[in-house]
Structure formats: C-alpha cells, structure tokens
C-alpha cells in the first residue's frame, strides 16, 4: 500500500496549478467537508481519515502477527537444538563465550585485510569486466581475435573453481620467478579479480543487450559512432539495469574474499584457524562467520532498497 501523504501539512501546489481559470469552484455537490482551500493542500475527508486509520491498524496487526510467529519459530528452533543428544558438546566447542572473546581481536584484525582486499578487488573487477564486456560487443572481422579471446576468458574463468584459480595464481605465478616477491594477499586479490571479472562481464553484457535497439538506432541516427553510442547512450542505461545484479555479485565476492586464506594470507578465516588449532575450540570460526555476515548486511540491505526504488520508478506509482 502506498503511504498516504501526511495530513494537514500545508504545501504549495505545483507550478501552474494554483491559479488561473483551471480552478473553478466545486459547485457545492454535497461533499463540502473535503473542499480544498485556495493555497493549501487538499484536506482529507473524514472517510479518508477512517480508511487511513484502518490501514494503519492493519499494519500494526500484521507487525504483531509477524512478531508472534517469529517468536514461536525461534522457540521451536531453540528447543529442538537443545534437545539434540550432542548439544552440550557442540555448545561447548562452537559457542564458547570465553573463546569468542579471546579470538575476537585477532579475527577482527584479519577481517581488516579482507576488507582491503575486497576494496581493491572490486575496483579491479569493475574495470576488467567492463573492458571484457565491451570487447565482446565489438563488431567486424578485424576484432575477431579480441572477441574470441574475451569469450575464451569468460568461459575459462566461469568454469574453473575459485579455489583452483587461487592455487594456480598464488603458487604458480610466483614460481615463474618473473615477478618480485609479492604478498599472498596480492595473488589472492588477482585470482579474485580474474574469476569475478568473468562473471561480472557477463552481467554487463546482458545489461548492454537489454538496452532496447531503438536507443542504439536513435544514437546512430544522430551521427554518434559505435563507441560514442556505447559510452553515452547504451552503457549508462545498461549500468542502471544491472546495478542490483552487480551488488549481488559484490556480496558473493565479499565472502569469497575469505578464501585467500588458503594462500597463507592471515585474514579473518586464517586467524580463526590459528586460534582454533591453538585451543581445540571452533568458536573462532563462528566469530569470523558472524563478522562476515555483519560486513555483508549493509550491502544486502542497500541492494534491496535500490531494487525496490528502481521498481517503484518503473511502475510510476502504480499499486500492483
């Protein structure tokens, strides 16, 4: 239900509306209580106020119902868990508050590395993916090698498991002794960029192809070249279309960043592993997992909000 406008707040009418012959008197047709004054907004009738009150009440009711059902659900889950035969042992080795407190600083420190890797990798992914997507849209026989290369790239890295790419990049490339010694986090970032660019470039390509052909015709009709058309007309619209999908990929990458631990980088996962093996208690993993969730939550909420806004704009206020 669309939120009703705040009643009783006087606001000026839109331009060109509040004056001129367009405002004839409402010739007293019997709904006198709803008459609008010359300058203020329409004052809602008693009937409309009743309807709003009813909707509000419905709103409260549904909140109450959802709270009650959540409570019941949570109680059932807790009861079932606590009555499993192994619960005391699991609680001891996975949910030990003391172990959580002990490992927290190190895990948090590790998470800071994840955040930095994530920041660098997402910029890298955006750039590389855009280049690949653009290469794949190039027309003409001259560009065949580039097109084929881009296609092969996306096939390869979408097919290969991230962990294998991590091993190959993290242990293979340094083995060439072509580059100076780099941190494990560097190679991890590179592997993430390689894999995620393959996915994200396909998202970009889908967005580019989803822009209606008439837009391209209109741009070329104005004399814009293929490149100008892409940059000025197609890509801006494509970006808007794929933003929710991109944010979703970002969330996925946010947790895959934890995989760089396999290369030996001391990130949140690795820190948790160290703590775990030191005290034979798995709680640090739970701590790290929860921290990753906390890290992802804002972006997840932002994605939901943005998609809802996009949908609202496309529907132009319609209620279905």
């Amino acid at each position, binding site marked *: *239900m*669309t939120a*009703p*406008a705040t009643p009783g707040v006087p*606001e000026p*009418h*839109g331009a060109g*509306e509040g004056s001129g*012959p*367009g*405002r*004839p008197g*409402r010739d007293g*047709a019997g*709904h006198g209580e*709803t008459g*609008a004054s010359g300058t203020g*907004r*329409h004052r*809602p*009738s008693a*009937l*409309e106020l009743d*309807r709003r009150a*009813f*909707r509000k009440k*419905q709103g409260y009711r549904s909140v109450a119902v959802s709270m009650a059902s959540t409570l019941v659900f949570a109680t059932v889950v807790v009861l079932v868990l606590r009555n499993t035969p192994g619960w005391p042992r699991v609680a001891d080795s996975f949910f030990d508050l003391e172990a959580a407190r002990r490992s927290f600083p190190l895990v948090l420190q590790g998470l800071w590395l994840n955040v930095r890797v994530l920041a660098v990798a997402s910029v890298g992914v955006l750039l590389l993916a855009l280049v690949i997507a653009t290469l794949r849209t190039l027309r003409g026989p001259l560009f065949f090698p580039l097109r084929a290369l881009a296609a092969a790239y996306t096939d390869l890295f979408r097919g290969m498991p991230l962990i294998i790419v991590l091993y190959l990049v993290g242990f293979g490339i340094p083995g060439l002794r072509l580059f100076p010694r780099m941190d494990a986090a560097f190679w991890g970032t590179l592997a993430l960029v390689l894999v995620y660019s393959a996915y994200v470039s396909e998202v970009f390509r889908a967005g580019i192809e989803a822009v209606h052909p008439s837009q391209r015709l209109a741009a070329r009709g104005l004399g814009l070249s293929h490149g100008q058309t892409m940059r000025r007309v197609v890509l801006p619209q494509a970006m808007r279309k794929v933003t929710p999908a991109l944010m979703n990929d970002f969330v996925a990458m946010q947790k895959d960043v934890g995989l760089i631990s396999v290369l030996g980088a001391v990130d949140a996962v690795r820190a948790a592993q160290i703590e775990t093996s030191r005290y034979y208690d798995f709680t640090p993993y739970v701590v790290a997992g929860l921290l990753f969730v906390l890290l992802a939550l804002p972006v997840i909420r932002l994605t939901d909000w943005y998609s809802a806004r996009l949908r609202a704009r496309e529907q*132009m*206020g*319609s*209620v*279905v």
Partner: protein
Amino acid sequence: MADPVLELRDVWCAFGDHEVLRGIDLTVQRHEVVALIGASGSGKSTLLRTANLLEHVDDGQIFLSGQDITDPRVDGDAVRARIGTVFQSYNLFPHLSVLDNVTLAARVVHRRPRAEAEEHGRQLLASIGLAAKADAYPDTLSGGQQQRVAIVRAIATDPELLLLDEITSALDPELVGEVLDLVRSLKASGSTILMATHEMAFARDVADRVVFLDAGRVLEEGPARELLSSPREPRTREFLARVLAP
C-alpha cells in the same frame, strides 16, 4: 436509466506533491459510453487507473455496481476481474499466442476449462476477422490487429465495465478505423465503456456523454454532440479549437 456501473465521488489522487485528480465526480450508467477528453496531463489516464484500482486513491469513493471498491477491505484483484482494460500500447503478452492472450484471464482468474475458454476465444477472434491468427504470436500482427486482440482479450470474460485508455494513440492513421469500428460494435452490443480519447470525431460519433477534464477536475460534461459543438466553458472552447484545428 439510473443504474450506475461506475460512480466516482470526490476522488483525489496525488503523486507526491502533484495532485493529479482533484475532486472528480463522475457516473457511468449501464450501457452508456462516456468519453474523457482533455489535454495531456489533465488526469484522464490516472482517472481510468483509479477506476480499476491500479492507482491508489487519496480521498473520495469509487463504486462499481454499487460496491465501494475504495474500501481497504476490498480485494483489488476481484474488482479488476470484473473490469476490462485496454491500454494505449496494447500490452499483449509477447510470450503467449494470440489465443492464449485472449483466454488467459478466463482460464487462470475465472477458472474456466481450457476447451471452453478456447472455443469462446476463437469465436471472438473470428468475430473480428482474426481467426487465422489465433496461433500466431503478437509481434507478427499489425498494430491495429494487436489492439483489436487486446480489446477482445479485455471483453473475453464479459466484464461489467470496459476502460479504454487512448487506444488509438499509438496506431498509424490508416489502422485507427478498424479499432474504432470494433468499439462501435461493442457499444451496439450494450457494453458499458469509459474511454479516454484524442479522437474528437469518434467521441462525437460513439459516446453518449463527453467529460472534459482540466487540471484534475471535471470542468464540463454533457451529451457528446452538444458539448463538442457548443462548449460552455472558455477552457473547453480553447481546447477544442486547438485539437480540431487542421
């Protein structure tokens, strides 16, 4: 004659600060054809969309055959199942055949058996001369054919009321005629129609009554011929002079 199918009482509708409908009173009697005219932005389309609850109402009441459909307890889907709507740009479903477009609501909303719905659908398509196109897909049809299919889709479930939203505005001039002929035959068969239109000649010819909207209000209404040939309000005269000028 006092058997109103649709009745709007003091209907208001705003998008943010922009009040699109500002106290509309309007009645459509059974078997009556009412044409909404007015400049773009005067609220014609919004009015039609409030009538089938595709748009919220900020105040006032709308009655469909006596039932207050603006009551928050009313099920909007059930209301819309009783109303047929035709849009400016046809809005046929491109992934369904012409026949499936026509029978979708009958099968899914009204739970008619497929065979029965399809027989009725084929009859309707035959009545507009498109029987041969039943299994074709919408994008293989001309604009006029598509819009006629859209009209048939809207009437396939025998709605109490038909809402037509500028159904000829997206058509080539030579295709307008076939669509308007179909509306004429609907009127002849007794349909109740509320339509927004830019075709003044058509409004004069088919509508029983014409309602002139200006800035979200009903500025003037009356029998079609009378209002269109001798409007009382200066704004109406101005509008008609502009749209009728060659």
